[in-house]
């Protein structure tokens, strides 16, 4: 309890979380909470998360799955009377929680999000087939087959419309300068970690 309402966590967020320095500007009007299309699914809406950060509720915030509800629709950003970049703060918190390993395990969007990144980071471009299959098989092979069967109609429809290419598995799209691309991302990560005293 002694952390209660100390600014330690607020300072941590300001230092390490994308756009975290905005958190202190919230005036608790709640327009973000009311504007989010997935609002009802948030255990703690953005404005409440901001208050929790000021109240020093570190664990509760970072282990919450609320941030993972964000679909980047930007509704909150355009309505915020204090112009807080809420979408990015949510992404930033999610990313930070994930890096600390505090984010809820098996949070599906989190799995998808990291899968998506790894997918693009590999080839420089997204491989939609691998991505979808990856998603289906994230909970193991049997479940994967089930998922794949369930979505078969969709998949086939896509193939028929030439909008999903089985060959992607073997001859995927990608950037040519893979080494440069990888080096670039590696470097970017290094710098970010240095700036935010991460890792």
């Amino acid at each position, binding site marked *: 309890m002694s952390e209660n309402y100390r600014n330690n966590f607020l300072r941590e967020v300001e230092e390490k979380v994308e756009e975290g320095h905005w958190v202190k500007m919230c005036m608790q009007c709640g327009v973000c909470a009311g504007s989010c299309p997935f609002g009802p699914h948030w255990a703690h809406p953005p404005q409440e998360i901001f208050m929790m950060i000021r109240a020093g509720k570190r664990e509760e915030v970072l282990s919450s799955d609320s941030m993972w509800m964000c*679909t980047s629709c930007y509704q909150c950003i355009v309505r915020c009377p204090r112009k807080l970049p809420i979408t990015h703060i949510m992404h930033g918190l999610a990313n930070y929680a994930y890096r600390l390993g505090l984010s809820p395990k098996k949070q599906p969007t989190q799995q*998808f999000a990291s899968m*998506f990144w790894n997918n693009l980071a590999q080839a420089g471009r997204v491989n939609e087939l691998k991505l979808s299959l990856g998603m289906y098989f994230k909970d193991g092979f049997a479940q994967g087959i089930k998922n794949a069967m369930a979505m078969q109609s969709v998949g086939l429809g896509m193939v028929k419309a030439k909008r999903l290419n089985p060959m992607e598995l073997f001859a995927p799209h990608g950037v040519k300068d893979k080494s440069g691309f990888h080096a670039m991302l590696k470097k970017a990560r290094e710098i970010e970690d240095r700036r935010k005293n991460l890792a």
Partner: protein
Amino acid sequence: MAKKTFSFYPGCSSQSKASSSNYLTSTQSMCKLLDIELKEIPDWNCCGASIGYAEGGELPRITLSARNLALSEKNNPGMDVVATCAACWLSTREAKERLDHSTQMKADANEALKEAGLAYEGKQNARHMAEVLVEDFGFDELKKGVKNPLQGIKFAGYVGCQTNRPFGIAGESFENPMYLDRLVEAMGGEAVTYDQKVTCCGGALAFSEPEKSQKQIKDIIESAYDHGAEMIVTPCPLCQANVEIYQGEVNKRYGTKFNIPVTYYSQLITVAYGGSAKEAALDGQIIRATRLEEIAKK
């Protein structure tokens, strides 16, 4: 009007045989008809979309777009960058704003780009194809080229999120942008008023939490139907894909009987300008846009 040339950023989903390859095809046809030349950014990479955040983090994500912009500056100098995908445009423009706003961010990004032998200066604007149509042409100008007006077809202009917020098309409101409706009218079609025009389709959760996104999709289609739409038109590949391909799933989940075509503005223009169904990539529809096909036959 004089020929226009842009540095083109198609994005992952608009590659050939990718989920919105029909967007690419119809865009290319549309540009031919409008005398727009698209110079693809060589060796462009994924923008990271907004979903990349978990693993990606801030700087790596921004660097992705920085690389594309750097490549464009290098290979397609003196042009605006134009994207067709909402997410690609948003990420690129957002990245550009942050890079240009923060000298440190720019320095850091360039430090990373150096590894790929590239440098970002910030010479070019990042625009969406819809902006080009609205701002560089304008509805009256676009109207002129119409050969086969889309007479009597009722469209629900579905703008969605990322072409609309936080930047949107200049002079448009976030809650009720009118440019798609005007575009539809310019092509001789009829635009219906409905209340889900800017509702999020939940694309980001389509894979991970389908029940959530499909609720969104249902609301959107329902409202479009209730207000008399027979076709939906959108500027965003993710919106298009979600709203079209999951209709079967939605019907299963909610016992509905939706079967409404979801098209791109580029397909409308191509058809209205006298392009063929093939040029408009109508064969790329999973739910056939028969009314458009009929007109395209003329």
